[in-house]
């Protein structure tokens, strides 16, 4: 809208993207994680440490395991992509 020109996206492109994403989400094998009856409460400092682990404090060998797979095994709360990339 900066120069008075309106952005127009091709309808067909949007529809294709929409279909693909919906299809991927619906067909994806979603994690089945039973929630703990006594969930641990993590503090803000714990979140800071978790971020520190991902970015700086993991073991230097099998790096992909330490920054992706191991955190994912550790908690149903903290392994969302948003937290990992925070």
């Amino acid at each position, binding site marked *: 809208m900066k120069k008075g020109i309106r952005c127009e996206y091709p309808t067909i492109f949007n529809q294709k993207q929409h279909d693909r994403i919906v299809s991927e989400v619906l067909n994806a094998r979603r994690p089945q*994680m039973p929630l703990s009856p006594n969930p641990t409460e993590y503090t803000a400092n714990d979140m800071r440490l*978790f971020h520190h682990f991902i970015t700086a404090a993991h073991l230097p060998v099998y790096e992909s395991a330490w920054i992706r797979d191991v955190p994912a*095994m550790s908690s149903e709360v903290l392994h969302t992509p948003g937290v990992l990339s925070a």
Partner: protein
Amino acid sequence: MTDCYQYQYLMHAILASAGAHANLLYGNTEPGTAVRHRQNAIQGLNEALARWPLQADEAHAMLATSYLLAFQSHFMPDGFADYILSMRGSFQLKDVLRAQQLRGVFELELEDPGQLTVYLRPQNFHVLNQKLLGDALLSLDAIFPMVDSPSTHDIEKAIYQKLVEAVRYVVLVPRMHNIPDTVETQTPDPVQAAAEICKIDCLLQSQEWPQKEVIHLLSPSNTLSQVIMSHYAALRFVLTPLCAPELGMGTHVKAMVEWCEIMLGNVKDDGQIRWTDHVQWPARVTRAMRRCVNENQHLTLGELFDTLVEDPQY
């Protein structure tokens, strides 16, 4: 693999190791946090070990926890015994996973012995301080009569022997009065020297020796073992130019210097032996390492490697 359960003890181990690492880098801003998470991780891991038989997912979570506890020990000034015992636990667990073919995040194949050579840098042999190594051999030679005593445990003798061989392989002009010379070649062999040091690591961490023997070796009140192990720790520093793994260059070594300092502090004279005379060599190396830590603030293995390669007389 990841679509299974949550393993709280693994999260505690992650937070524990991150806390110890952060304390090392930024100072102890949250005293007790790392220790509290460590306690929770150990408790959870013990409970998990009691749930037999192992499932593949959880077995790998347990292995990760065990590795992390060992990793955290690397940042703890009093973590040497914890490190060895955690690594032994990890190796044992890995053996179980391998035997039961429980596949998951971690590779379970046996380490290729050929991989060892990747970590060796025999081309740096020329930067080793020959005077320092000669003194190491003399220091080891001086404790030979105590090691040769019938009351000395076999594990202490085994480590002592490998230390002597490691030094013997890199000393150009060996001077020994008490130790029988078992090294046939007179030509320095830095690869073999580094291999002897790696054998000590394996000896401590594998199941080759029973836990009881290893605990005897690590006991702070066992003066002879503290003397031997302080030589081992000091020699690891001195031989860094020969065997520093590329992936480990970012590892912080401050706590390892503190391990040496604690071992040296455990050595006291008794009525018969002036033990403190026998740790002069490791004390000298440890003082140099302490100076290096203080100068660099956060000394990594890579920085130590560069310092020793660029300034062999450091």
